[in-house]
């Protein structure tokens, strides 16, 4: 029996080594916690940060669809407000066909934009009107310029923003409408958490103080061609919808494909179950009922 006992004895010692080490860490940590008298130090971010509000969108839910007119309105908000500071570098003008723009409209839209180019005669860097194959141009020539123009905070590219944040669509809409005065309770409880000069209080932002100034401030800031209301709430929702499309242009197609796949798989699985039952009926004991 000796060779049976030995590996188990070694295991026992190795096991006890790890258990003692982790319990030692536990005791040390518990000492610190007791010493502090509290598990977690409270801070303003934990108490005053808010999760995004839930908004109704046509593309919500497994059967949701884009509202092309809303996406076009969102494009206009991006164009007239956000584009001053934020790039949209993964979206090409040709992609706007998905918003219902015709080829002519896309050409005209692109031509209004100025994109970097090369002079065909001299080879010097220059600018030229955009083509449908071009991507949305960046408002700044490079990151240093973006940093310099924005008090050292680079405005993020917006192409993927709704996928790069938890609950991104609602987050964008909530953030754009969430600028407010710092609540007096916050200042009373955490006087050191006063919003520094140059930043703006917004409870939907992770650390509550955002470098971006409120971009949507007045009703009618953007005039919609379809006569839709252009209060701050509507503009925020429309641009959030547009940025959902830029982040996941295949969203609706993906779900439609998914439904077809599901119908096929359910059918195939039922067939597979029936053939399995039939094959096994020969050897399955009869149940006594």
């Amino acid at each position, binding site marked *: 029996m000796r060779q*049976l006992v030995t*590996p*188990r004895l070694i*295991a*026992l010692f*190795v*096991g*006890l080594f*790890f*258990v*003692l*080490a*982790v*319990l*030692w*860490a*536990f005791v*040390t*940590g*518990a000492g610190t*916690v007791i010493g502090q008298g509290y*598990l*977690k130090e409270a801070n303003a971010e934990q108490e005053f940060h808010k999760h995004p509000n839930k908004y109704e969108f046509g593309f919500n839910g*497994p059967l949701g669809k884009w509202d092309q007119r809303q996406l076009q309105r969102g494009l206009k908000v991006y164009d007239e407000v956000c584009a001053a500071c934020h790039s949209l570098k*993964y979206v090409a003008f040709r*992609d706007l066909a998905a918003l219902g723009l015709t080829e002519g409209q896309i050409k005209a839209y692109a031509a209004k934009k100025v994109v970097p180019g090369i002079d065909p005669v001299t080879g010097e860097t220059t600018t030229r009107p955009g083509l449908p194959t071009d991507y949305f141009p960046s408002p700044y020539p490079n990151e240093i310029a973006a940093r310099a123009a924005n008090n050292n905070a680079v405005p*993020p590219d917006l*192409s*993927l923003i709704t*996928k*790069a*944040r*938890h609950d*991104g669509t609602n987050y964008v809409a909530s953030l754009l409408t969430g600028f407010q005065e710092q609540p007096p309770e916050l200042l009373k409880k955490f006087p050191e958490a006063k919003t520094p000069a140059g930043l703006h209080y917004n409870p939907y932002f*992770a650390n509550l103080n955002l470098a971006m100034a409120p971009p949507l401030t007045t009703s009618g800031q953007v005039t919609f061609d379809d006569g839709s209301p252009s209060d701050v709430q509507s503009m925020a929702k429309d641009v959030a919808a547009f940025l959902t499309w830029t*982040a996941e*242009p*295949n969203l609706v197609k*993906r*779900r439609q*494909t*998914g*439904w077809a*796949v*599901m119908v096929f*798989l*359910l059918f*195939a*699985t039922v067939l*597979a*179950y029936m*053939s*399995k039952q039939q*094959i*096994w009926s*020969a*050897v399955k*004991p009869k149940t006594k009922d």
Partner: protein
Amino acid sequence: MSFPWAKEYQPTNGLTKFLDEKLPLPRLVYNAVGAGYPVPRNLSYFWNFGVLAGFFLVLQIVTGVILAMHYAANAQIAFASTEHIMRDVNWGWMLRYAHANGASFFFIVVYIHIFRGLFYSSYKAPREMIWLLGVVIFLLMMATAFMGYVLPWGQMSFWGAKVITGLFGAIPLVGEPIQIWLLGGFAPDNAALNRFFSLHFLLPFVIAGVVILHIWALHIPGSSNPTGIEVKSESDTVPFHPYYTAKDGFGLGVALIAYCLLVFFLPNYLGHPDNYIEANPLSTPAHIVPEWYFWPFYAILRAFTADFLIVPAKLMGVLAMFSAILMWFFLPWLDRNPVRSGHYRPLFRKFFWFGLIPAMAVLFYCGGAPAEEPYVMLSQIATAYYFLHFLVILPIVSSIEKTEPLPTSITAAVLGSDKEVVKGEAAEPVAV
């Protein structure tokens, strides 16, 4: 191997006769997953997960090879090339979501496969080699998945790579040179991305090779079963085809429904939003978390927060994390109780359901949570139990346990009696 009653392959036409003589590939398949492989007749649905794991390995290789045709492993453009796949490649979004969620499903399926093996002690003689090869596959999967997650070059890709390669820095004396050598630099950059891509392409084929060995080793003693008793006669078995091909077909259908729900309706549910932000070495994410399938082991790594004797806390964590998996290699020699199935081991069963499974659940939860209290203390308790379970409790339980009586045969377990054999199948006792 085979039982004496295994059906023999009979080539029926000119082509199969020709092949059988020159290269008996059809015979190999027939004996591996065809009518030539007798399998215990009482396998539960938990025995579907080996075939499912094989399916997801193939799915990962197929989607991965196509993705590699469009992806660019260069730190300057890797993130943009991923977006190119998502936006401009025909059905590229589907391929990428299928691949990313395919990795998750591969792990779900393999975790169930492993825990089935643990509950039914499938690692015991004569199946030790199958288990050892399985642990090798799991380790290779972890390496492959880790390197795959780096490729999109998002924030979590970069910082995950930094944290995990940083583990090698905990090795005394040579840690830092090893870390720099592995990364090809002081931090993850183009050199690291390139080698990770190369290895991420290579390792799945290594996995496929070990899977072949795993299945080969399985065919020597034959499949285990929920009673844990060995096959005694022909009436204990049914041929793999059509019985288990049909059952696996149904199992695959169910698995694919769950998988496609994720791919088509919630493709980013298991991912992290930060990975849609391009890698930025100058901006550390608030919480660096690996992919969900690493959470239990990440929790073990972070549970060791204090230096122990002469071992620094970080090294202790790294040792524990690797040991947590490596000790699985020794299970066949730690659990010596001849009874395999947990159904007949009352004490073992209690520790499994009320000890190991809750400990794993706590570790899983804490691994995804931020490294603050109470998660650290919870994961410390769970880590202590995890090591205690495999290295202390299991060896002791296996020596002292009074097991419950086993059925006389698989047939008896299914039909309630040995006598009542299936029509047309003789229950001849076989000399083993």
